[in-house]
């Protein structure tokens, strides 16, 4: 017989693993596009998380008009088209001003998109609901009902992941992308259609981020600060994985997804482990550190991981490139 306590621990582990993998897969949906864009165009798209946010808000608006399922397809297409336009009419122009200007262009874009979203949808969260057809518990582990919508999210991200793998391995564009990942300097020699490939890659990359936005919107909070909250974590993922490494981004996405989810579910603190501090220290900064729970530290875990990786593996987990 398993005792009651073990049941609780087991339940926590199973649920956190599921949630962690789910969060990781969502991160990878975005990190994969970001990595491919970086490898081919040489620019880290600072506004990538903004397209994730646009996906969520487009999804919200369109699902109000025509329902969730059409929105799931239309919103990413719209965001992707917007992304392609940004590449064609913005980035391509800025390219001649150098990489710093390109990165700053996307930085300014992220800033402007947040403002525009605030103007249109306001600063408070919008009411983006889980579609009724998926609003039921999928299964029950011990005492927790696991929502069907989360399983749906997981399935969608895994389906896209598999789809991406197939495209990368089998299609002509996929081969070009693969070549760009391993030999970034050769991208310039692709021929006269290089501009169209760049536009396509940027469009698809931002559309993937938007897919993540549409499916995450109802489960998380759809709000104008969601890009600013997620963006830095996304960049941690690509640096920890190794800039320009797709397998690295995958490993780092799952790692950060799991680390953060597990940390959130834990309530331990130094005070809990070693007992409260003496009254002499009750009002000092030491008591802050002593009393803080693992769950409260969860938001900084990705950044702690980043610093550790930088100390021990400056190139990232699977990275090989200098810049």
């Amino acid at each position: 017989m398993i005792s009651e306590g073990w049941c609780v621990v087991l339940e926590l582990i199973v649920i956190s693993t599921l949630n962690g993998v789910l969060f990781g897969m969502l991160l990878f949906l975005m990190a994969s596009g970001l990595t491919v864009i970086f490898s081919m165009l040489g620019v880290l798209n600072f506004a990538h998380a903004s397209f994730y946010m646009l996906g969520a808000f487009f999804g919200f608006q369109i699902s109000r008009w025509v329902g969730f399922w059409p929105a799931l397809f239309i919103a990413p297409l719209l965001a992707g088209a917007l992304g392609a336009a940004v590449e064609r009419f913005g980035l391509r122009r800025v390219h001649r001003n150098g990489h710093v200007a390109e990165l700053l262009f996307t930085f300014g874009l992220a800033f402007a998109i947040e403002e525009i979203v605030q103007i249109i949808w306001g600063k408070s969260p919008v009411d983006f609901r889980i579609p009724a057809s998926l609003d039921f518990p999928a299964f029950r582990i011990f005492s927790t009902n696991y929502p069907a919508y989360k399983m749906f999210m997981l399935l969608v991200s895994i389906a896209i992941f598999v789809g991406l793998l197939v495209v990368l391995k089998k299609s002509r564009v996929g081969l070009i992308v693969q070549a760009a990942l391993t030999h970034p300097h050769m991208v310039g020699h692709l021929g006269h259609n290089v501009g169209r490939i760049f536009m396509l890659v940027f469009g698809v990359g931002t559309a993937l981020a938007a897919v993540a936005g549409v499916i995450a919107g109802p489960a998380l909070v759809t709000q104008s600060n969601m890009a600013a909250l997620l963006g830095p974590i996304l960049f941690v993922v690509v640096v920890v994985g190794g800039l320009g490494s797709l397998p690295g981004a995958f490993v780092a996405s799952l790692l950060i997804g799991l680390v953060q989810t597990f940390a959130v579910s834990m309530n331990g603190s130094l005070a809990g482990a070693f007992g409260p501090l003496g009254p002499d220290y009750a009002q000092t900064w030491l008591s802050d550190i002593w009393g803080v729970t693992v769950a409260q530290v969860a938001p900084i875990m990705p950044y702690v991981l980043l610093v550790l990786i930088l100390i021990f593996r400056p190139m990232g987990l699977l990275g090989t490139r200098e810049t």
Partner: protein
Amino acid sequence: MTELASSVAPPNPALSERLKFYGIWIAVALLLLVLPKIFGSGGALTTFSLIGISIIFSLSYNILLGQTGLLSFGHAVYYGLGGFLVIHAINIIGANKLPIPLPVVPLVGGLTGLFFAALLGWVSTQRSGTAFAMISLGVAELIASSALILRTFFGGEAGISANRTKLFRLFDWSFGPQIQIYYLVAAWTLLAIIAMYALTRTPLGRMCNAVRDNPERVQFVGYDPHVIRYLAFCFAGFFAGVAGALAAINFEIANSAYLGAVQSGTVLFSTYIGGVGYFIGPIVGAIFVTALSLSLSDLTSVWQLYFGLFFIAVVTFAPGGITGLLMMHRPLLRGGTLGKVLPSYLIALIPTLALVAGLILAIESIVHHTVNPGDDPNIKAFGMSFNASSPITWIIALFLIVGGFVVARETWRRLARAWDDALTVAHERGYHA
């Protein structure tokens, strides 16, 4: 050898040049001294103080971006920590009645910035380029989030405050009135500008430029680019700390916004808009952006959007910033061909202004319908009055945008041609810069 140097090396500046050089500094000092006599209102003094702080902060940022080629998204960390430590320092000094006057307290902020830059800089500057940019962002998030956890030290959302007037007094200055704070900020600003300018004239300063241009080659003339980046990072941290300290003294409070992404973004905007290619660029940018953000917020409720769009326009069309744009005209001015392009400028200005007006009209109308749909549709923005619901407004906006864009594109092409001609003539006359 020395004879060779005197004939081959750049000549030492003539006495008149040197007098001019020192004259500029003295003129700046005098200007700072008499400025409050001309604009004496409390609002003006506050604005000047904010500009001074922003100048130090932006110049410190340009040690990274313009001098060393390091794009940081987290420079506010050193500004903010400097500010927090100074508030604590003021409280400690005040409580223990230590004989330390307020004017030297910004040094605490500088040393704090230096300390944390020295601590966090070594891992951050291992890489340059995009990786450095992302690392600076991650480190900034780490510090900003930690600040919210360590509530006793950072005071949580509300922040911590201090009373700057309770310190040891020199010459009976209490530093209560804004005018005294203005002079404090002005003195530190002048000192910081001189120090940062001097830094660019040292072997380290020159090697920073070399690392910016070509970190690979630097290794083959005996230098470790990582060490150069690290030292530049430490200097930038020090001066950012001084700026943060002055901000904390000015507001008598430090809160989590000091450390945050918005503050880091603002210094990046100021520096880049001013121009990273010249020493004076960030000074111009700090003045311009501070003044712009203060005045734009009076004109429209969505000034941050305009600000973002303006920044995108600078990155796209004028990567040298305001200073770069002005300096482009130097050869034309000296070659006497500036007059040839002025008419083209004036012609291009009209459709460009029409395009901008159309955009403003459209943005303000949309804002009216999304942000306050119930209000009176007759609104006013940038001094223009119009009815946001009227189809006429929409038609005019559309016409201005489309028409302005088409015509502006043509006039800018003409301007570019006129410009090339004028520059060629200037080059022929021997003026390259």
